């Protein structure tokens, strides 16, 4: 093939590029000489728009024929690759910029660290499994599923009548459910408690992801083991990795059937970084409770006060007390396009788009402000709108080059409204680290550049 493109413009049946059809030779000359107003009128009239079309996009269309159209590109003039050339498909190489990234200086070592999801490029509500954020305390491993075991026992004799061991085969034979839920680290947006600290939505909010999880309801497994839920009022989940992470799980969510022992994620097995072959799913609750590489569930009558529920994942209040077992991820939203570190490609139409979620249920509405919170308009929620799941909202916006401060504010089905920084800090101060669900502000500069700001 060698990329020898045909350049002959006289191809029978070739349709000419649309904008040229209503531009006279004089109009084109006017554009070339810089008199864009003529063109703008003609273009806007032809499209039936007001005067707000970005001037910058027009000359390109009015210039000579687009070589990307008239000079046939190699992909139109050669044979493509065969099937299964990449047996596990990969994103286009032109998408390499959107990957998980660490925030420099946040942690000292990579095996006890975070890699953030590139929310700035996300569509819809599902996070591709390979972009799901990562948070490990003692590294991740790829566990041989044939050697993985899952155990259920009780803290005290008789609490679980039949302590049992299950293989992955056992678990995959049982009746399963598949549910879509967000998974947010309790420390998401934690760097921003006191002031603006990081530039893009990847770093401010990229510790939230959303997947369809498949697994077995934990209550079913407890049932099989003869668990006595009148005596056992708390559940401990424990991982099989080096950290053997332990977390106390609220029994109400176990009883409701929401807590899953999951092996599936987005139609395939969990990724190793996300707990392959088994993790707990605790909808609406912070990520640390979704214990990865899950090896054991223990039924007990008191919470366990584990390291990550008495020394970390405790929220420091202004009076110097730590709030313990703060689990629910409260109502929250963020605009992902446009967002910090971006520049709008031009004036004119833009869809403001973002994500909203609540650990207390479904998102009921999202309001968007372009003037820093003085005035709000209700955004459209894209379907599906599911409980404890990311919800995509959109609001049409025409940007005419003015300075703007974009904000989104979510309300969940319990009526809980997302707070401003002022409201949040008035109660919880600035040192909590965890559970920052404040309204995010993005400043749009007249140049089109967008940056992370906090309003007074």
């Amino acid at each position, binding site marked *: *093939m*060698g990329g020898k493109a045909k350049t002959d413009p006289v191809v029978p049946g070739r349709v000419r590029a649309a904008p040229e059809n209503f531009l006279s030779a004089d109009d084109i000359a006017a554009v070339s000489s810089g008199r864009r107003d003529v063109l703008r009128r003609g273009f806007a009239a032809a499209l039936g728009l007001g005067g707000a079309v970005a001037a910058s996009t027009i000359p390109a269309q009015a210039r000579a024929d687009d070589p990307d159209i008239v000079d046939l590109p190699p992909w139109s003039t*050669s044979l493509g690759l*065969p099937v299964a*050339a*990449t047996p596990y498909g990969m994103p286009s190489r032109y998408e*390499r*910029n*959107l990957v998980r990234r660490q925030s*420099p200086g946040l942690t*000292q070592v990579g095996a006890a660290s975070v890699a953030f999801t590139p929310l700035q*490029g996300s569509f819809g509500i599902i996070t591709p499994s390979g972009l799901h954020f990562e948070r490990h*305390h003692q590294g991740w491993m790829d566990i041989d599923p044939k050697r993985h075991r899952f*155990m*259920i026992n009780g*803290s*005290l004799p008789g609490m679980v009548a*039949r*302590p*049992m*061991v299950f293989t992955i085969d056992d678990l995959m*034979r049982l009746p399963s459910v598949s549910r879509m839920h967000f998974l947010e680290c309790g420390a998401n947006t934690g760097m921003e408690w006191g002031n*603006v600290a990081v*530039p*893009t939505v*990847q*770093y401010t909010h990229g510790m939230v992801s959303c997947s369809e999880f498949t697994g077995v309801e934990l209550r079913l497994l407890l049932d*099989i083991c003869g668990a006595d839920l009148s005596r056992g009022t708390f559940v401990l989940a424990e991982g099989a990795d080096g950290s*053997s992470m*332990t977390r106390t799980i*609220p029994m109400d*969510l176990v009883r409701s059937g929401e807590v899953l022992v999951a092996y599936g994620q987005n139609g395939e097995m969990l990724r190793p970084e996300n707990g392959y072959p088994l993790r707990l799913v605790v909808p609406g609750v912070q990520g640390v409770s979704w214990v990865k590489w899950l*090896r054991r569930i*223990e039924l007990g009558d*008191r*919470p*366990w006060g584990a*390291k990550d529920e*008495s*020394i970390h994942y405790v929220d420091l209040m*202004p*009076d*110097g007390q730590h*709030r313990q*077992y*703060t689990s629910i991820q409260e109502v929250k939203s963020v605009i992902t396009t*446009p967002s910090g*570190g*971006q*520049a709008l*490609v031009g004036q004119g139409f833009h869809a403001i788009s973002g994500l909203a979620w609540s650990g207390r249920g479904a998102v009921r509405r999202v309001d968007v402000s372009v*003037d820093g919170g*003085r*005035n*709000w308009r209700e955004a459209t929620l894209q379907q599906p709108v599911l409980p404890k799941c990311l919800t995509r909202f959109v609001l049409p916006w025409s940007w005419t080059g003015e300075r703007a401060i974009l904000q989104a504010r979510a309300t969940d089905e319990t009526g809980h409204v997302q707070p401003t920084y002022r*409201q*949040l800090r008035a109660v*919880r101060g600035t040192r909590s680290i965890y559970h920052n669900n404040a309204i995010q502000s993005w*400043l749009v500069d007249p140049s089109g550049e967008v940056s992370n700001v906090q*309003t007074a």
Partner: protein
Amino acid sequence: MSRPRDGVRHRIGALLVVACASLAAATALATGPFPGIGRPATEREIAAWDIDVRPDFLGLPKGAGTVEQGQEIWEAKCASCHGTFGESNQVFTPLIGGTTAADIETGRVANLRRVDYPQRTTMMKAPYVATLFDYIRRAMPWNEPKSLSDDEVYAVLAFMLNLAEIVPDDFELSDANMATVQARMPNRDGVTTAHAMWPGGGLPGSSSAPDVGGTACMSDCAGEVAIASVLPDYARPAHGNLAAQHRRIGPVRGIVTGDDDPDAIDDPSPPALKRARDAGCMACHGIANKVVGPSYADVARRYRGAADAVDQLVGRIRNGAEGVWGNLAMPAQEDVSDADAREIVAWILAGAPER
């Protein structure tokens, strides 16, 4: 956790559990709704995994260790990451520091109230000594978790408590005196469950009414909008080139804050494939499919194991070939150098991998 503490109880317990378990398994198999799923856990299996210790010491194993023994373990197995005095910030936040004798009296670490206090060490936060025991036993040393004996865990914990001046130099920590140490933990009264973020009952003071909520105002809400915090200019390059962290198409681009080329494309093809493309070979050959000439996969199959295949094929490429694969001829590929032809042929014979 349910580990019996002495031998006799252990044996009786084991017998009982085994008896109950096999009985239970039989019943489960016969009558349960999910016959054939799972099996009873043995006593040893449970003991191997169920190592959690609760703040009220349920699950605490018997054992003891002195500050002095602990110092040796610390220096050999902990200090490299946490520093000689638990003060290091190299690998993780400091473990020791920030607590006072007054805190040990009050049970509240005063420095946690100070907005200006730079760091929150583990000892400043830890409300329970049992949790430190549990955590060190399951997770430390970080690179060799679960390698310490129970006595070693007692000893190294005794040393840490001594560094924090909670226990004296000649102290021996044991399962028998953990409770007295708990009564001296500097932040033992520093945690509260009075909040609305626990989705379930059973915690003192917990409520269902959120402590913070926003206002659903729609117009003329915020008064004058002032910007209170922005990213300082010097921090702009701190996260690399944001242009290279955004899509190259769509309504926005990332702004340029560094050198990484946002348009750089990794071509994953092996060099030989790039050479074959540059030399125009791919116009007539596919990797897996016949075009004008045979597919490289077919060529590889035909010459697999042939001794002089490389010389022969290089010659035919550079001089032209005819009659081996059909009626069509390959014109002499005179522009390709001998070295390039050799590299391409070696790659073809290796099965012409695309990556």
